[in-house]
């Protein structure tokens, strides 16, 4: 049986987070009544002209810098001509021969923990273009409605080289890209609202063959799960076709989540001739080095750099560093917590953010940006663990109290609820004496060699102080006492 290699390239349409449209002043807010956010330019009334929104260009520059691509000093808007009712001008303003970003790369991580491997996905280009409106086929009794609110929304189309070799790689790439565009603040990444849509170009070839197989393009994948399912189905379909002796025809296909299958929408024969040509209504887009430099200065530290710094400066493991740089919000929260707790407490801060906070947020279905416990509060809490004011167990109580809003800071709650750890040796010795006196049976068991009894005695001592005694001191003093008794 032949071995097959899968080849995948991804095209992503990321809606840019500008307040107004790419060539008009209309709002880009989602969810308004149909056509209320469509002005004369969006409606393509006779005589109107496009004016480029520099905010959209700014987004493209940010992206180019983030993926280490070349931000083109000169790029050109071109018209892509085709008729469709939700395309008001009868052409889409896009970029064709000269895109705004050339090249670039994105590193993806495959597998988890120690088995994780990295792979670089090369980008071909990224270009600016306008979105079309929407055709509404329901509720109009055999007719179609047109909503032009979305028409003219700025998009960045990001195109990869055919570098991915499995659906898992494709999904890893899509996830990494999704995280990056949100990280640099150019796209909200809302896949349900269509802010981030992927097309996958899929082909297969016998392992060892140089030439690519004929590709089919799966359009409009709007979730990572569907992407995986669609590619897996498409791959097995293509292999089956070839093995049955049928050649693959270049085609555009749609994925049906209900059946889990892909089906052909149009083949190469009925592909459009888009008659691209430079848009004479817009001057070439010139981006000078100053603009790039200003944008660079305004960029957040990128995830890769931040990850490396977390490892180098905070001594985190690569895995922890990756988890804490999953989004700008998480990384920002973590760094703010460390800033309060102190660099020495960076590791416990990481654990608190990744484990305790994550679990609590998950329980209430919240994201970190809306956490009731602020980064400063969590940092203050971790600081009190680090300086032995409270134990880890008490800290969990304090955390719950902070979550419930019972105080402004860990210190306030510790003070108010008297949770300060008992570290006075005399006080602990006195306590241990009481525990030993009250638990003669356990002492006897311990002396008979039952190590378990020691833990029970520790438990009794902790219980007597409502957990406030320093556990380490309790351990040490108890050993000493038992040895001497």
């Amino acid at each position, binding site marked *: 049986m032949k071995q097959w290699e899968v080849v995948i390239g991804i095209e992503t349409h990321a809606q840019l987070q500008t307040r107004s449209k790419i060539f008009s002043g209309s709002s880009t807010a989602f969810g308004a009544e149909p056509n209320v956010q469509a002005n004369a330019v969006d409606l393509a*009334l006779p005589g109107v*002209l496009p004016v480029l929104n520099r905010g959209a260009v700014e987004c493209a520059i940010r992206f180019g810098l983030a993926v280490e691509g070349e931000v083109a000093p000169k790029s050109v808007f071109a018209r892509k001509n085709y008729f469709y009712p939700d395309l008001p001008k*009868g052409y889409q303003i896009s970029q064709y021969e000269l895109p705004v970003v050339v090249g670039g790369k994105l590193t993806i991580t495959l597998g988890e923990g120690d088995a994780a491997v990295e792979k670089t996905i090369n980008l071909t280009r990224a270009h600016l273009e306008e979105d079309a409106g929407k055709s509404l086929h329901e509720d109009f009794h055999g007719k179609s409605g047109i909503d032009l609110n979305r028409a003219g929304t700025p998009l960045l189309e990001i195109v990869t080289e055919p570098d991915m070799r499995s659906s898992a790689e494709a999904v890893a790439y899509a996830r990494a890209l999704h995280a990056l565009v949100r990280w640099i603040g150019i796209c909200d990444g809302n896949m349900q609202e269509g802010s981030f849509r992927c097309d996958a170009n899929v082909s297969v070839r016998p392992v060892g063959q140089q030439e690519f197989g004929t590709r089919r393009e799966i359009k409009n994948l709007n979730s990572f799960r569907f992407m995986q399912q669609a590619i897996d189905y498409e791959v097995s379909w293509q292999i089956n076709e070839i093995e049955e002796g049928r050649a693959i025809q270049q085609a555009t296909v749609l994925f049906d989540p209900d059946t889990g299958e892909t089906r052909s929408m149009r083949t190469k024969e009925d592909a459009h001739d888009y*008659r691209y040509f430079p848009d004479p209504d817009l001057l070439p887009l010139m981006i000078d080095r100053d603009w790039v430099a200003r944008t660079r200065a305004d960029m957040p530290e990128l995830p890769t750099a931040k990850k490396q710094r977390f490892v180098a400066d905070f001594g985190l493991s690569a895995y922890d560093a990756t988890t804490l740089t999953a989004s700008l919000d998480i990384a920002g929260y973590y760094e703010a917590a460390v800033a309060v707790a102190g660099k020495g407490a960076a590791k416990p801060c990481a654990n608190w953010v990744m484990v305790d906070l994550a679990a609590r947020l998950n329980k209430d279905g919240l994201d970190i940006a809306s956490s009731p416990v602020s980064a400063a509060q969590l940092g203050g809490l971790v600081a009190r663990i680090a300086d032995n004011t409270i134990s880890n167990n008490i800290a969990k109580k304090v955390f719950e109290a902070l979550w419930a809003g019972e105080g402004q800071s860990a210190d306030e709650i510790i003070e108010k609820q008297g949770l300060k750890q008992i570290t006075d040796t005399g006080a602990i010795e006195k306590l241990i004496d009481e525990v030993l006196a009250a638990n003669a049976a356990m002492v006897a068991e311990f002396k008979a060699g039952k190590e378990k009894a020691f833990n029970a005695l520790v438990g009794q001592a902790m219980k007597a102080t409502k957990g406030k005694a320093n556990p380490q001191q309790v351990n040490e003093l108890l050993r000493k006492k038992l040895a001497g008794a």
Partner: protein
Amino acid sequence: MIERSLKSLAAALAGKEISSVELTQTYLDRIARLNPDINAYITVAPEKSLAQAKAADARIAAGQTTALTGIPLAQKDIFCAQGWRTTCGSKMLDNFVSPYDATVIERLNTAGAVILGKTNMDEFAMGSSNETSYFGAVKNPWDRDRVSGGSSGGSAAAVAARLAPAATATDTGGSIRQPAALCGLTGLKPTYGVVSRYGMIAYASSLDQGGPMARSAEDCALLLDAMAGFDPRDSTSLERPADDYLRDLERPLAGLRIGLPKEFFGEGCDAAVMASIEAAIAEYRKLGAETVEVSLPNMKLSVPAYYVIAPAEASSNLSRYDGVRYGYRAPEYADLNDMYAKTRAQGFGDEVKRRILIGTYVLSHGYYDAYYLQAQRIRRLIADDFRTAFKQCDVIMGPTSPTTAFKLGEKIDDPVQMYLFDIFTLGVNLAGLPGMSVPCGLVDGLPVGLQLIGDYFSEARLLNVAHRYQQATDWHLRRPAGLD
């Protein structure tokens, strides 16, 4: 009153010799009487015009006037004007009432000018004789069996027939200069980017340019002052300080270097027309100008280059007329594609369809390099020719059109002959230069136009050169007979 210059009308209005309402009514009466035959206007709306005139009179009474306050003007029906039917000469937009003002309209409204009506034009500005208009051909007031020229034939006929003191027009390949020549008027096509294209319905975006059409250079200067200026809504509008187009009008012409391209003075131009041109140049020599022979070797390529680039852009610009959102929609259709096909087949005339087909073809996969890119290369060569010529001279002169106005119906069935009629004007648009046409004679009772071409942004100089000639001659004061 109808023979007076804009400046003199402004003085009459300011001096309360006449009110704007009276002046506007005078023209509306003439339009009612003469337009049914001449067909210069597609739309007149007296109540709208008179309301504007009334507002202008109030401004005049309050002493808040500009050079154009209260002056009625004809607007080419290519400019969107809020509340006005704006057809662009097409059945496709027969029912379109614009909800917004073109920048040119907005500027003229702000200046206090009155819109007399919307003038006839070749459909979507595609034509050289005004015979492609859905609203019928315009008759040349000098001879009503002849064409008024195109595409701004309605504006030209309106001014020539004294149905307006001046008009706006647009020029993509000669559409201001050629009808001005054929109707005995002065017209100016500015440097590309000087007048905003916002709200000016696009034919060929990289060539289209609005400008004034009037009886004299001085009137054109006044009008251009109000029309021109940077517009942030047009990305191809030039961001430069506002020019004063009146500043150089009186400058003496001594030492002016006139370039005479040998390609303008060879074959292809009617002998009597050429004699008028030669006489005009002799007049300029008398005024102190020198002449020098220059060459525009690629001029003959301007026709093929233009008829690739303009249709290419038009094929895309006119895609928005699809029957979906506004304008004409075929009454019956089977499905979406049928709706598109029938709407566009029924809504567009033959010449528009011809150019959409040519444009679609030259942009198609496999033909783009051979046609569109090649035409762009020729365009650069033509611009280079002018650049070279302007090293030797200040202004280029020659005929605007090879003949005087031809007969209605004479060329309409022969597109190539019609296209070749624009041989002297197309290069100016391809290069983006300013150009004028100035009346310089009559041949068999029909006007001849002298074309002046200047370097980029030399509008003030061109107007000066035209104005001094008009002070020395009276061709621009001649008027067609039988208009009273």
